[in-house]
């Protein structure tokens, strides 16, 4: 019952929004939705685990709050104070404070062969339905991890609750790779950085000696591909997260940039500039072979592959200004939504310049950056070029990247001329615009797949 109402809330938006899309207006309306009230009392714990339980509870609450789909009932309003993970709550006590869902959790520690682990158990209750809501088919869930991975336990709990209540795939237990920026504009230091999806646990992966740009995750979560100016030779690199090793991708004679993994992780799509002309190539990481995908005197760059691997969306100014095009990965001609058959079909025809296309993990939408009338927008459009919707607007919004479940888009924003870039996220509906905290200026965020 509860799940259905939130799912309706999400799909209801999809029904509501097309009214505005004909005018391609910015959907940043706020406060229309009524978020679902949920109670997440501090998880039970004893002794040394009390602080840990408090911290885990706070991360779970923050994850769910960050979706904009929930309000958290304040602890001070709670009537029942003797909750137990193994007992049914007194539903009347929670109905009276208008809570739709109740999360009951417990944290303890276990020692396995002399090694200490933390363990968190959780149950989700439907207050008005007066029944437990099964999580992944179980009456509750229990996660065990090393103490240093306590935040991941919290993210997994939040993911379980989010998925159960919305019907969407999880995404909190994931990471974001980005470029950390420091120093003056004309002598900027740019470092590769990685953090949890909520901005915690920032780690720097490169020293900042060389400018690095546009990192993207492999589907296996083990590698990042990015562009580096190491030795003043701008090339696409691979970075191995496990051992920190970096290597140049392929033996291209000229500048390579705009890399992105194929959906199976076996290849990297990239752009090579040759005598001023940029074209798209695909590099097979296993066979070490390279294949040219475009051969056009215009700029072709920023390729992104569809989830089924059959098509590629890219940026080209072959029509006179930067626009988005779709082609078949095998290079064969395709029938264009706008009519005719061609080796590439233009899908954007709005006024303005379109760039940085990224195919959604669900396959039905393409996110992009749009520049028009002195403003920048993050938007989405159907793969047939229909239903363009602008989700954001500011002085500079650039570089959308999808959350693993395709519900949320992260990007970077400069709020005003001269303001440093910061990371932001926005829901696919255009609501719930939030800044992701970072210790320094930050740009080029890209989401990892869900962690195991």
């Amino acid at each position: 019952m509860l799940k259905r109402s939130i799912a309706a809330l999400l799909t209801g938006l999809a029904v509501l929004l097309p009214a505005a899309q004909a005018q391609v207006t910015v959907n940043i309306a706020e406060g229309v939705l009524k978020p679902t009230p949920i109670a997440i009392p501090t998880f039970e714990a004893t002794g040394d685990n009390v602080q840990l339980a408090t911290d885990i509870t706070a991360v779970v609450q923050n994850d769910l709050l960050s979706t904009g789909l929930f309000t958290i009932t304040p602890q001070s309003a709670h009537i029942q104070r003797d909750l137990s993970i193994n007992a049914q709550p007194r539903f009347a006590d929670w109905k009276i404070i208008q809570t739709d869902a109740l999360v009951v959790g417990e944290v303890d520690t276990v020692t396995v062969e002399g090694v200490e682990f933390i363990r968190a158990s959780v149950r989700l209750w439907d207050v008005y339905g007066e029944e437990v809501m099964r999580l992944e088919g179980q009456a509750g869930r229990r996660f065990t991890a090393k103490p240093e991975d306590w935040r991941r336990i919290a993210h997994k709990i939040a993911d379980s609750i989010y998925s159960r209540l919305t019907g969407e795939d999880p995404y909190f237990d994931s990471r974001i790779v980005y470029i950390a920026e420091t120093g003056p504009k004309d002598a900027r230091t740019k470092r590769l950085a990685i953090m949890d999806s909520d901005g915690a646990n920032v780690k720097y992966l490169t020293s900042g000696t060389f400018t690095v740009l546009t990192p993207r995750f492999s589907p296996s979560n083990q590698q990042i591909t990015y562009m580096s100016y190491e030795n003043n030779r701008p090339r696409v690199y691979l970075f191995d997260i496990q051992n920190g090793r970096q290597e140049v991708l392929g033996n291209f004679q000229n500048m390579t940039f705009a890399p992105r993994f194929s959906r199976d992780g076996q290849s990297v799509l990239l752009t090579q500039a040759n005598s001023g002309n940029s074209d798209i190539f695909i590099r097979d990481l296993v066979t070490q072979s390279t294949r040219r995908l475009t051969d056009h005197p215009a700029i072709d760059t920023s390729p992104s592959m569809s989830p089924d691997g059959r098509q590629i969306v890219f940026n080209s100014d072959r029509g006179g200004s930067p626009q988005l095009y779709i082609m078949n990965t095998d290079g064969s001609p395709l029938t264009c939504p706008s009519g005719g058959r061609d080796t590439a079909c233009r899908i954007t025809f709005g006024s303005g310049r379109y760039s940085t296309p990224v195919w959604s993990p669900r396959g039905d939408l393409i996110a992009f950056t749009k520049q028009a009338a002195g403003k920048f927008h993050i938007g989405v459009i159907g793969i047939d070029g229909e239903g363009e919707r602008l989700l954001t607007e500011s002085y500079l919004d650039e570089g959308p990247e999808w959350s693993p479940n395709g519900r949320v888009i992260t990007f970077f924003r400069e709020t005003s001329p001269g303001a440093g870039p910061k990371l932001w996220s926005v829901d696919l509906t255009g609501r719930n615009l939030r800044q992701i905290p970072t210790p320094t200026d930050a740009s080029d965020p890209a989401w990892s797949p869900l962690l195991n």
Partner: protein
Amino acid sequence: MRRTVMSTASIALLLGAAACASKPKPAPVQETAPVAETTEPANTRTVVEEPTRVIDAGPAAGSIEDFTVNVGDRVYFDLDQYRLDSDDQDILQRQAAWLQSYPSVRILVAGNCDERGTREYNLALGERRASIVKDYLVSLGVDPARIETVSYGKERPLATASNEAAWALNRNGFTQILSGATS
């Protein structure tokens, strides 16, 4: 005297840049008329000033400074464009002539873009700009083996402000001397 000429040239250069904000063009260094001598009857003076020797402060011929000051190391592009107009061609013709005079000099041509575009497209656009400059120099007889190119996209702004004047300065092809200049 030499100093006077140089400072007049610098002023011309500044005026040239200010007068044309949308597309700043460093004015070519111009010879100006010598400062007129005032002729006064010598016998009316009680203190007679001897002319002092002017120390030549101009850049040494064939130096990086000579190239930067007397030739011009940047050409500027219009918004989203990579065409060379006649002013750009003038500068590049001077660059080519200078490079012919100093055949051991090797250069790096960097293509730069303003910040009002997205990162990857700008990398491609900067590459186009660098390549156009190289091609023009080669067409004037400069050995292509002496010219490297690089695109910095919007990563290396010359002007740090966020306004039209700064963006115009940041859309450039920048010829940097790598080696072979006299010091």
